[in-house]
């Protein structure tokens, strides 16, 4: 118990245990415990990010290791480096905000907060883990509450369908990734098998994995993680699922948990399987256009605010994929920045749409209008979120997307050009159109008067916006931390291709490193 990370993970989990023991009539106390647990977690994460973390430290830090299953080499092992430090901060802030906006949950409150806290603990644990087994274990721990929360507290007629779709889709993704991870573990020789990600990285740096294994494991991880991140064309669960989910769940899943797949790709798949990644990244680059352009067009046609946000969230994932596919320092740094920025943004937009739904009782964009006059604060926040979504400078999304596009230009000029178009034009069209329809124009005919958020209720929105702006104006807070870690990932992933491969199958794996 000597790492701050352990406390960050344990705070929500202990909170869940405490809530379990409180009788269900004490609603205020239950809410208070959940709020306090996530607050502790957030404060510790802020402290870790700004004070405990040493920038320009080449290795993982603040580590803690506790033996769990000695015979299989599984340890509870947490630590941060540039890749996950921002994600943990973002996750803790979003979790706090998610509890803040959950005051409208009135049924089975106790169960709701238990699940929410377990999900938070799972998410933070997954990002902090340096052990493959716990990495997966914590992710599953966070995933299952998602399904239950959508099934029980979700909204809309499609709730049941959405629950089963998201459950089956994400379970398949997670299980594919699990098989990939087990196969990866089994690549080590019998004596020194370990689930330790650091050890694995060291081992495969010294002795690259054989090609057949790489070509088998990489697609498993790519598509397993890809399904979890809503990679086109495996994205259909996302808009519907988020559309039906309660705000807090959508915030935590779309904002934070979904980044698990991207994080896994960057942390595990790229550095350990450089040859396979270099041959598969072309595919990824093309698929990410599906996210950016296709889902952008789909978002344009949406009439339900949540479906629009859901599709735009899928579209934003395209930038992360593009950054990963570029396999350059700038691109990967950008991808991680987008992950953090989008997490905050997705949480903000889902929280706002949740507020609007709660007030107006509808999410149909056509039935709303002129809301800015009635709810100036929420309206202004929505405008800012929309601007951040189109990549306006000043918000954290801008530096991230810009870095990704710069990084990807050299490797995939055509894809990058289309992605820029998708980001700036398509993104702007649907975002601005939504803003116009919801906030401006004449009031809807049957509009009942609605109230703006009270001072206390403004806190989560203000918090998320402030963080977005902070990282938007001072992106170096993030990028300086990410850079050294991204550097080592890129170095491992772009090692010269192995000679044996040149001889064996030069056609199957057109080496992009050589093209460069």
């Amino acid at each position, binding site marked *: 118990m000597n790492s701050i990370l352990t406390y960050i993970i344990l705070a929500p989990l202990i909170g869940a245990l405490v809530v379990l023991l409180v009788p269900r009539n004490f609603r205020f106390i239950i809410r208070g415990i959940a709020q306090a647990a996530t607050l502790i977690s957030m404060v510790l994460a802020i402290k870790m990010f700004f004070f405990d973390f040493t920038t320009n430290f080449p290795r993982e830090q603040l580590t803690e290791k506790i033996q*769990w299953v000695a015979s299989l080499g599984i340890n509870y092992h947490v630590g941060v480096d540039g890749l996950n430090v921002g994600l943990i901060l973002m996750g803790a802030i979003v979790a706090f905000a998610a509890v803040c906006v959950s005051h409208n949950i009135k049924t089975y409150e106790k169960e709701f907060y238990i699940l929410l806290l377990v999900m938070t603990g799972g998410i933070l644990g997954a990002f902090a883990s340096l052990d493959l087994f716990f990495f997966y274990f914590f992710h599953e721990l966070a995933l299952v509450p998602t*399904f239950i929360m959508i*099934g029980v507290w979700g909204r809309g007629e499609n709730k049941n369908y959405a629950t089963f779709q998201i459950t089956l889709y994400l379970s398949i993704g997670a299980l594919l990734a699990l098989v990939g991870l*087990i*196969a990866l573990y089994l690549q080590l020789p019998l004596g020194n098998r370990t689930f330790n990600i650091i050890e694995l990285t060291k081992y495969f740096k010294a002795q690259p994995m054989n090609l057949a294994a790489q070509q088998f494991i990489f697609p498993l991880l790519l598509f397993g993680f890809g399904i979890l991140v809503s990679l086109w064309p495996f994205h259909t669960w996302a808009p519907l699922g988020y559309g039906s989910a309660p705000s807090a769940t959508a915030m935590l899943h779309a904002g934070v948990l979904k980044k698990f797949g991207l994080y896994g790709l960057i942390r595990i798949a790229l550095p350990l399987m450089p040859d396979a990644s270099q041959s598969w990244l072309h595919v990824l680059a093309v698929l990410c256009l599906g996210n950016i352009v296709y889902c952008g067009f789909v978002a344009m046609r949406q009439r339900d605010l949540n479906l629009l946000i859901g599709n735009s969230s899928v579209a934003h994932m395209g930038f992360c994929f593009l950054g990963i596919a570029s396999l350059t320092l700038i691109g990967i740094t950008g991808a991680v920045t987008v992950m953090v920025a989008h997490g905050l943004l997705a949480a903000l937009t889902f929280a706002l749409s949740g507020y609007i739904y709660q007030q107006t009782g509808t999410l149909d964009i056509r039935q709303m209008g002129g809301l800015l006059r009635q709810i100036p604060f929420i309206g202004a926040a929505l405008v800012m979120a929309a601007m951040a979504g189109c990549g306006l400078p000043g918000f954290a999304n801008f530096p991230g997307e810009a870095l990704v596009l710069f990084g990807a230009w050299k490797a995939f000029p055509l894809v990058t050009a289309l992605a820029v178009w998708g980001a700036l034009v398509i993104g702007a069209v649907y975002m601005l159109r939504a803003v116009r329809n919801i906030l401006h124009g004449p009031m809807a005919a049957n509009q009942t008067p609605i109230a703006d958020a009270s001072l206390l209720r403004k806190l989560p929105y203000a918090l998320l916006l402030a963080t977005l702006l902070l990282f938007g104006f001072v992106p170096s807070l993030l990028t300086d931390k990410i850079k050294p870690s991204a550097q080592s990932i890129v170095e491992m992933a772009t090692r010269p291709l192995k000679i044996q491969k040149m001889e064996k199958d030069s056609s199957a794996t057109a080496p992009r490193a050589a093209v460069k």
Partner: protein
Amino acid sequence: MNLITLEIAVVILALAVLLGDLWTPVAHKRSLGYAAAGGLIIIFSYSFFAAPAFGSGFNDMLVVDGLSLFFKRFFLVAAIIVIFIALEFADRIETGISEFYSLILFALTGMMFAASANDFVLVFVSLELVSVTFYVLNSFQRNRLASLEAGIKYLILSALSAAFLVFGIAFIFGTSGTTNFSAIHGLLETGPDFGKNSAFLLGILFVIVGLGFKIATFPFQIWAPDVYQGSPAPATAFLAIGSKAAGIVLLLRVLFIAVPQVALHWNTLLIVLAAITILYGNLCAIPQRNLKRLLGYSSIANAGYLLLGFAALNQTGFAAILYYLCGYLFAVLAAFMVISIVTCGRDSEDVTVLAGLNQRSPLLATVLTLAMISLAGIPPLAGFFGKFLLLKAVVEQGATNSAYYWLVGITLIGVVISLYYYFGIIRAIYWSKEPADLSPVIVSWPARAVLIVCAAGMLYLGLLPDRAVQQTQLAVQVLKVNSPAVQIQKEARHP
């Protein structure tokens, strides 16, 4: 501790329960179950305190090693919990409740002997002891037609499988001249051509058929749903865990102690069996509404998962089987305990009886939810770690034969399908549309204790698997899949 001290103790306990019945007034006969459970708890604790007597006896017919001791303790735990389930169920058994307890104990004896079998004769005798007691146990509710039907179905199909088993043993004896596992192993070692004798192989195949019936693997699963549905809940519970585990331990012993050289070439058979069993069980479970029938199909699916460990043909796989069985024990017995308490005083065993259970009894709802989550294989419960170990063992073999990857793929599909029906039960508990009856369910203290033990077991195996994994790895050391290791095996067995 003698070689068969534990078995003798259980038989004495069973006879004592029968005798005790004579002097117990009718009103108190139910509580003989506490005596039986208490006796079993003492025997179970004794197995830890007394120094285990490893070795073989009775003309090498019976062997006590790590594996058999593991399974004996496993069966003891299962029987203790089953007797507590029977105590909850006692009101629905009109006459002869003490016979019900003692039959459970006799079946337990058969299972414990099965765990030690080192000879095909003992395999047959111990399995028959299990089967015959189950004929009675399954049809114990004499005036319930469903129960009688279950008993008859089990009788006919079990007899058929016993015929296969005997036929197989006859072939093996006819070709090898012995029924002893070590002797058959020796023959296979010395005569390389012997392993190609098709009559001998046919014999092994028939034995697998007979054991497959007990485990409920495809295509010998046909009895399971009907019998599970019709039998009294405690009998079903014991059938689901005890009888299945007895089949598993015998299959392990036959395949990997008697004929590992043959088993090594039969990985395709095992892969196909596992794949079809998983798909069949999971797909058929989807439309089920009767709880026990649903668990019957789920039990078939779980037999398929257990076969993964066989198909993997390595020690990791065998250890994973043992681990998975332990997790399965707590989950299934917890589920049957809840079912027998909830269905008390009702005719229906439909999923709808669970409606509003979270308001009627939070404990029952929580434990049943945990059991379903564990069966579905979701962390942090035992089922997840068990499935993880099984998958790991299978992927490990993937390098030798790409069929293993297909097997992994089918398993994943099966696991995803199973989420649907396990979550269906959870949904029925918490979010039924019209909970008909919200009167609180009274749960007796012993039942509470058992439920908490089951929940703790699932959590323990899921959260702190280290010790249990080591135990399973130690237990399967006697099973060898490659011939050079045979010497070590013999040394391990006769220290």
